[in-house]
Structure formats: C-alpha cells, structure tokens
C-alpha cells in the first residue's frame, strides 16, 4: 500500500477545488440571470405569470437538490443526448439557484413601499421605467446581503454533484479516501476546505447585512 502524505491529500483536493469554484460560479451567474428574468416576468402582471413562477419556485424549494441532479442527469439522457455529469450538474444547479434567487429578490422588491410605485406611475413612467429607475435601484441595495449569503448555499450544493459522478471537491475526497484508507483525515481536510471557501463569504454577507441595517435608521 502506497503511503500518502498529508500534503499529497491536500494537493489533490486543491486541484479538484477548482471545479467546485467553476461550477459554483456558473450556477450562481446563470441562475442569477434566469432568476432575474423570472422576476421581471412575475412583476409584469402578465396573467398567470405569478402562479407559474410561484409553482416553479415551489418545485425547486420543495424537492431535494439530489433528486433534481438525478433528474437532470437521466432526463437529458432520455433525449438521446449523451451528456457528462458536468453538464447535468450545471443545468440542475443553475435552475435550482434561479428559483431561490428569484424568491429572495421578489421579497426585496416587495419590501419597497407601494408609494414608490405610485409616485412613479403618477409621473407617467411606464412599467419598465418604474422598474428600472425607481424600484430596482432600491431593491438591489436590499438584495445584496442575502444574495451573497446564497452563494454559500450554491457552493455547498456543488458537493452533491459528486453523486452523479462529477469530479469536484467531494468526489475527489471520496476517491482519495478509497485510495488512502484514511477517511477521518481526508474528510476532515475536505470539511476544512469547504469552510475556507464558504466562511469568508458568510462573513462578508453578515457584514453587509449589519451595515445596511445600521444605515436604515
């Protein structure tokens, strides 16, 4: 049996961590764009938009991310498209992120007082102008802390992509465990690496939230 040093373990995990970061960014940015579109659609008062987006959100928030990943993986295969775990994971995580972000952002827009909408309307601004120049600038400010906070959830979510075979941090961890027979050590390192990724972001989000609450006296 080959003897692995701590450094070997660490190095391999670090290499795999790249993919965790890449997947997280793709899901976060892609999910953000989709979520924004869904938000505008929901706000546009198109008949049925509210119910449709509401159902979409309920679907992703009321089911396990693991199931969503499996469905993405086997669902794409159903259409005869031979796909890698990578694409399936990116798709599932993007949609998952879009549902949560659109709901977070909807809450932020709803917290803008109705009077702002009415003042904008009374000044003859149309709906896109009301949104773009009056409501969204205010909503964005409120939305930053919870959005940054959700990035942590996305990073943790990428760990599940290991189950469908995508080689990110967690998958690398299980593979290294199988090779080294040192699960306690490997999984501890794994936890620490996720912690190193997520904790700074949590701190930033927390600080942003505190600053905002202080400024809102």
């Amino acid at each position, binding site marked *: 049996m080959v003897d692995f040093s701590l450094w070997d373990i660490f190095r391999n995990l670090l290499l795999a961590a790249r993919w965790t970061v890449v997947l997280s960014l793709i899901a976060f940015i892609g999910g953000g764009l989709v979520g924004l579109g869904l938000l505008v659609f929901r706000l546009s008062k198109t008949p049925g938009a509210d119910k449709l987006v509401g159902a979409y959100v309920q679907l992703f928030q009321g089911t396990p991310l693991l199931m969503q990943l499996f469905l993405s993986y086997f669902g794409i295969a159903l259409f005869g498209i031979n796909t890698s775990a990578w694409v399936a994971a990116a798709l599932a995580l993007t949609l998952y992120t879009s549902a949560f972000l659109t709901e977070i952002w909807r809450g932020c827009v709803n917290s803008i*007082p109705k*009077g*702002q909408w*009415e*003042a*904008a*309307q*009374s*000044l*003859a*601004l*149309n*709906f896109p*102008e009301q949104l773009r*120049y*009056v409501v969204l*600038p*205010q909503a964005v*400010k409120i939305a930053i802390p919870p959005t940054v906070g959700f990035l942590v959830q996305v990073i943790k979510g990428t760990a599940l992509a290991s189950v469908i075979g995508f080689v990110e941090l967690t998958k690398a961890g299980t593979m290294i465990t199988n090779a080294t027979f040192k699960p306690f050590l490997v999984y501890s390192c794994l936890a620490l690496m996720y912690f190193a990724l997520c904790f700074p972001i949590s701190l930033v989000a927390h600080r942003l939230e505190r600053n905002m609450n202080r400024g809102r006296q």
Partner: protein
Amino acid sequence: MDANKNILVEIAQLRKSFGTNEVLKGIDLQVEAGEVIAIIGKSGSGKSTLLRCINGLEVFQSGKLTVDGKPLMHENALAMRELRQRVGMIFQSFNLFPHLTVGKNVMLAPRLVKQRETKPGEEQARQLLARVGLVEKYDAYPDQLSGGQQQRVAIARALAMEPAVLLCDEITSALDPELVGEVLRVVESLANEGMTLLMVTHEMSFARKVSDRVIFMHQGRVHEIGPPELLFANPQTPELQQFLSSLND
C-alpha cells in the same frame, strides 16, 4: 353659453368597489380649468379613492371619467401615460425617490417621458426648486430634508411635468404642525397662478381661504357641494353639521 367655461375633469356616475365594499356610489362632478376644489369628509368617505381614480391609481367599475376631453382607458398604457402627463399627484407620505438627489427626483420624469435634454432639465429643476424655496437643496438626498421640505420637493417634481390638474391627497396630514405652513404657502401660490387643484384636506381654514368650491363627501357620495362661505357657514345636512362641529372639539 359661457365661452370661458373649460371643463378639465368630468366625472359622471362613478362607482368603485373594493371587493364587495362599494366605496364610491355614483359621483358626478365637473371641474373647470383654474378651479380650486377642496374635498372634505370623514375617513372612509371615499375622498382619497376619488382622487386616485382621476389619475388611474384606482380602477373604477362603472361610470365615466374624462380628463381634458379624453376618457380614461385603464388597459391602454399609452393613454394612461398621456393622462398622467396632464394630471399630477402629491402624496401624503411624499414618496420621494430615496436613491436620487432632490434635483434628480425632479428631473427624472421629464427626461424619461418628455425626452427632455439634460441642460434644459437641470434649468427647469432649479427653477422649480427656487419656486418652492429649496434651490439650495438641489444636491441633497431626501433623507437629509425635513418633512415640509420633502413635500415641497414633491410639489416641484409634479410641476416639472407641467400638468393641467394637480391632485393633492392630504399632503399636510403627515407633517409636524410647524411645517404645514410652508407647504400650504406653496399650494396657495399655485392656486393664485391659476393651477387647477383638487385637494383632499383636513385644513379647514386653508380650504376656506383658497378654494372656489368645497365638496363634502359622506359614505361614498357627494353629500354637499358649494362655495366655502356657504358650506362652512351654513351646512345644510345634519351629517355636515356633525362633521364640522366635531372638528371644533
């Protein structure tokens, strides 16, 4: 036929319900250009709802509402945009845009709706702010202003669209008493310049002084209507008598 009579706002048999609760039970009203009308009454009598129907913030179920000869068409976005350029509104809670400076608050709508260029827009904004006595606050943010100052900025913001009619929805009710005067002075000067005003107000002495007609609303109807000297001095109905006496308590 009086050649000077120019009906700006015509309301016929207006009915509005919130769900099963009928709040406006058939309003008839004609407002001439240059008229100042004060609307008084108990809370829940439908005063604000009536005002908000005129600029389309509330949708009414039956009746006819015409502004400047054009009937109100709620589903037609372009018609509503036209309407709101003719009709301006000042709110009880000011509703200034907190993320924009005072100057930008005033300039926003003319820029977007009337495609006003930056320089003429700035000039107009400074002019209007001078008119309401706040030109030095051009670069300030709304949260740096007192309530009375914010309301005066709101007036300047509405005037920037050069409306034919100004709707004032209890614009001094949220102000500390010592700040009410500065706002009322601005409104009075607007009235003297010939602006058509519809004001929902609790400031009876102001209404008496400035308005051409006073409307007393009660339970969704125009209960009494007439010039202030007659209405305040000689209330005809027991409801108005009760309302006026309750104010003096």
